[in-house]
């Protein structure tokens, strides 16, 4: 097993493997998106208290979840790269970051759009919203640091350190913000996720899976470009079919 794992952690084998996998992930993601949208907009009934607005949930919740989860994935890869000096892990970390940031952005955006009809304001300084915003800043910090260092090895290592420090801090931020908020304001108006209907749940999970697969596909695509760029001096790159063409 271990041998296998190391084999696929080498860019040489990973690059073609990723190339083969991408279409599958992309296609299943597209199908699930279509299914999820159908379930969410046609099959699922409208909500008693929120009318049609609640349907934002099918994009909002998956993107919120992914934005948080991808941060951990990114930090994990970065840590691997820093500790074991595996090139591919660092490349994966820098491929994950933009997608994570975009999901954070979508979560913020759709949340804001939801907030307007529900709370009458685009934004309130609620704990969850605020920590999501901070998460976006952490992503942007990672990307900006990586972008402003020219030497890719140094950039990987510096950004990895930042991601690790950040991931230690994320729970602290989350609890501090939550606490800060609840101290003042009894309760912000919140959507009580009371016993969700089955079809609603199904469409939510379908959309979540779709977003997941999309994230995997796009990250693999991005990492392939990064591999090409970083390894352009090596022999195996010059022998690739798409390069020779």
């Amino acid at each position, binding site marked *: 097993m271990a041998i296998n794992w190391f084999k696929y952690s080498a860019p040489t084998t990973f690059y073609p493997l990723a190339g083969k996998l991408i279409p599958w992930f992309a296609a299943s993601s597209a199908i699930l998106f279509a299914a999820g949208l159908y379930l969410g907009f046609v099959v699922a009934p409208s909500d008693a208290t929120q009318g049609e*607005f609640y349907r*934002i949930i099918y994009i909002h919740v998956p993107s919120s979840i992914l934005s948080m989860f991808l941060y951990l994935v990114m930090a994990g890869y970065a840590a691997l790269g820093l500790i074991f000096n595996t090139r591919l892990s660092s490349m994966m970390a820098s491929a994950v970051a933009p997608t994570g940031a975009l999901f954070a952005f979508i979560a913020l955006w759709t949340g804001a759009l939801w907030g307007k009809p529900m709370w009458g304001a685009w934004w309130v300084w609620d704990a969850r919203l605020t920590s999501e915003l901070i998460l976006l800043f952490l992503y942007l910090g990672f990307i900006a640091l990586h972008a402003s260092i020219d030497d890719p090895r140094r950039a990987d290592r510096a950004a990895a350190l930042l991601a690790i420090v950040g991931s230690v801090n994320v729970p602290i931020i989350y609890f501090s913000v939550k606490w800060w908020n609840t101290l003042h304001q009894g309760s912000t108006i919140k959507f009580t996720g009371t016993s969700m209907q089955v079809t609603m749940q199904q469409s939510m999970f379908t959309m979540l899976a779709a977003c997941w697969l999309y994230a995997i596909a796009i990250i693999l695509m991005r990492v392939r470009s990064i591999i090409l*760029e970083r390894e*352009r001096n090596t022999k195996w790159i010059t022998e690739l079919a798409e390069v020779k063409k």
Partner: protein
Amino acid sequence: MSLDIWMRENPLTYVWVGSYAVALLVFAIEVAMVVHKRKITLQQVRLLIEAEESA
């Protein structure tokens, strides 16, 4: 305000255009950027190889 009224009258359009269209647009832009990046990178790699062969 007019946006408020419009929103209450057309909730589905609001949800669609506001969230889903934007999200899909974001995905589309991301895909386009990644594809473009791949094209550029391939080009650069080829240029580099040619330069090395001629040198």
